[in-house]
């Protein structure tokens, strides 16, 4: 993992607690949902429910689960896996917090792959 593949997307506080915001890439790519739990853990997933591509960033965040606003699928924030018995997975993006800022891992080829 090269240092320059980690992109600083701003302070933790820019994401609402028990909430999410959407991150767009100027390159035509799928948007990313960045989540912050009540306990200030952060996660990033491709902002598309594996069911009908609902915007996960608009879902209700409870614990480490987000509920898709379109048809109520539960998605685990840490793995992107749908909560059983639903099956499917939203792509998960590595992420870390450095000095209060959120960095997501977006190597250039990976950006291609998401596109």
């Amino acid at each position: 993992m090269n240092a320059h593949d980690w992109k600083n997307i701003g302070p933790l506080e820019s994401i609402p607690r028990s909430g999410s915001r959407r991150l767009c890439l100027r390159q035509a790519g799928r948007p990313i949902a960045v989540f912050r739990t009540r306990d200030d853990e952060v996660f990033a997933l491709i902002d598309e429910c594996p069911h009908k591509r609902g915007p996960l960033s608009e879902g209700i965040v409870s614990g480490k689960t987000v509920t898709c606003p379109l048809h109520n699928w539960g998605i685990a924030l840490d793995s992107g896996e749908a909560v059983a018995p639903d099956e499917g997975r939203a792509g998960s993006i590595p992420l870390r917090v450095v000095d209060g800022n959120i960095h997501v891992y977006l190597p250039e080829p990976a950006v291609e792959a998401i596109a």
Partner: protein
Amino acid sequence: MANTNLILPSPTPSPNRSDSMYINDDLARLPPVAQLVVIGNGMAAMRTVEELLKHEGGKRYRITVFGAEPHVNYNRIMLSSVLAGDKQLDEIVINPREWYEENGIRLITGDEVTAIDRDARTVTSANGICVPYDRLLIATGSKPLAPRIPGLELPGVCAFRDIADVDKMLAAARTHRHAVVIGGGLLGLEAAWGLRQRGMSVALVHLMPTLMERQLDAAAGQLLQRDLDRRGIAFFTEGQTKEITGVDHAESVLLEDGREIPADLVVLAIGIRPRIELAVAAGLEINRGIVVGDDMRTSDPLIFAVGECVEHRGQVFGLVAPIWDQAKVCGARLAGDQAAIFASKALSTSLKITGVEVFSAGALMAADESDEEIMLRDESSGVYKKIVLRDGRLVGVVLYGHVVDGQWYLKLMRDKEDVSALRERLVFGKVFAEAESGGAKAVDYEAMPDDTQICGCNGVCKGDIVKAIRTLKLTTLSEVRAHTKASASCGQCTGQVEEILAYAAGVDAKATKKTVCDCTEADHDEVRAAIRTQQLKSMDAVRAALAWKKPEGCHKCRPALNYYLLCEWPGEYHDDASSRFVNERLHANIQKDGTYSVVPRMWGGLTTPAELHAIADVAEKFNIPTVKVTGGQRIDLLGVKKEDLPAVWSDLGQAGLVSGHAYAKGLRTVKTCVGKEWCRFGTQDSTGLGVKLEKMCWGSWTPHKVKFAVSGCPRNCAEASIKDLGVICIDAGYDLLVGGNGGVDVRVTDLLVRVSTEDEVLQYAGAFMQLYREEAHYMERSAPWIARVGIDYVKRRLVEDAEGREQLCQRFLYSQTFARIDPWHERASGAAAAAFQPLPELAGALA
């Protein structure tokens, strides 16, 4: 292959290669394990492979597939549905990678074959992969035609052919406003509609005077143009494109007649042409396409070709049906069947634009005086039908607006059936048996067909539910919901699902205790009682007091607790946005494509020219694709981008418009008739009373949505008897009706009381609202609530107990002092701004 008809006039006499059938080739000539190389991974290619694998002889081959696109095999026809947002990319995949693996097929994607060496019997790819073949299948498809005009190389110009094109168009729709589509055939129209659905302003340039002139006659083409014009696509017919202008990106499209159309995105959809370069270089016989015989062989007997790249008896192909037939013949031939013959049949076309129905097949009009045309035209309902008869047989049909009989007509054409006896009735279509009418008696689930749909939201049938219950041994409604999705969305089929559970598992779901959710053993009444008696004032306190299993609750209990606390402690408890469903958090309704709808309040259904101007201006300024009048006497603006919401509200707010709460579990509309001010039957000022009710009750949060109506006389034009609270004016005063509901489970209101003054109406309305707010369960409409507690109970509380009524109304008015605040104004003025904006875009670093 594209869903476009490309049966072009043949420029030269068509060579006939059916003579290649003499070649006596059979599997005996093949080595025990033969190599089949397929050039192309599209629909024609893989359908041929599928057909081949159905035959015993198909097992002889080791198959290698080259695809120039980096994807697995997908349904190209559905790209327009993906563009319009009706389908997702993963839904149009035909064969996933596992299919290739399971069938031992070597798949090489993202690598184009660049040469065929017929002497060495090898193909070589751009990446240098060289594969020998015993049999070769060419299915290189077609390529988009481009006009010879300057500016084609500019960024922002694309075709509409593959996934990469759709990605470009979707990316443009996210950030740009103006699109121009060049070409008014099927593909161009579907592209235009898709981009319009994505919120772009779309212009379509077409060379000919009417649209889809190859498939539609002028009358149908004009109807189509009229309908699409109403849906917001601007047409430039008889438009010859001269140039695409722009410096480092497309900026406009310039026509020969001097007209100039602004364009951030230009989509070329003027037609397709067989992709034949590879076959030309290999020295195969070529005309417009790769020439094949009835056996789908090219001029080299070891090489077959199918799909849009071929020419058969002078004809090239752009529609899927004949290509499926080619695939079948080609697969059989490769497997050693020497009898399979391809013959092209009458074709039909249809257009994939939601709500626009077009069908055509065969001749568009009478060819001479002996042909007959029969037409049916109903201008107001937008229906047009034309059939063409020749010698007592159907040879052509054009349908617009009502196309259910299309396939029936097509069959009559293909079977060359004598329709003389039907002649006079033919244009009215196939007569369908009367649909049986359903009764209200108990449903026999044993007799119900398995494919009867129970849950309309999620498309779940009776058979799916019964199967899940039996195989997974489900015993509760929530388990059935989780596994089948039945009743998981709007919940209107819940009763039926419970009955199926009883039928299939013998479980009485209705008898089991209905807890708030799986986080707790408490039911709604217990939670509300605890909040009140134990003075619980936060969600954490409720969860602690009632031993919640999950510390944060879940998406079901959090909105319920948030509401109960807000209702119990007005002015004290602060609303928790993170426990609100997205619609209530953003004060707009999320749509299936992630855009939002905006419905401003129109008090009592009244509006003014100034308000209408403001709405029209906003719709134009923000390129809002759909403007609809709702059933609640308001105007719905659909397809607004999230980032635009605060600005839209700001503009609407300038004209005095406030949120209509069309997204809220709260007061929606107060529907009224015009009343005695205008109507000769009106007995009271129903409109004025509606406005007063709405001004009193707007902004309140309730367990579920609430709708009012006021009718000025017992003719009840405002449909007050299916509203949560209805008022019917009479000479002597007002009848108050409660607990009505439209929708699937229609419930007519119960009469609560007759009163004589407007003030009494207002007091009863406030008291009714508060009783419903305090005692109904979250997500329970007033109709099921009253059905549960009984109208007599409601009468005891509201009619017989005058003091109680007064207190209820006072509590309602007190809570309204915190609620009658326009949430749009707050947000247009900057509140919760971050909620509407994505994070700053990641840009430069990735370029």
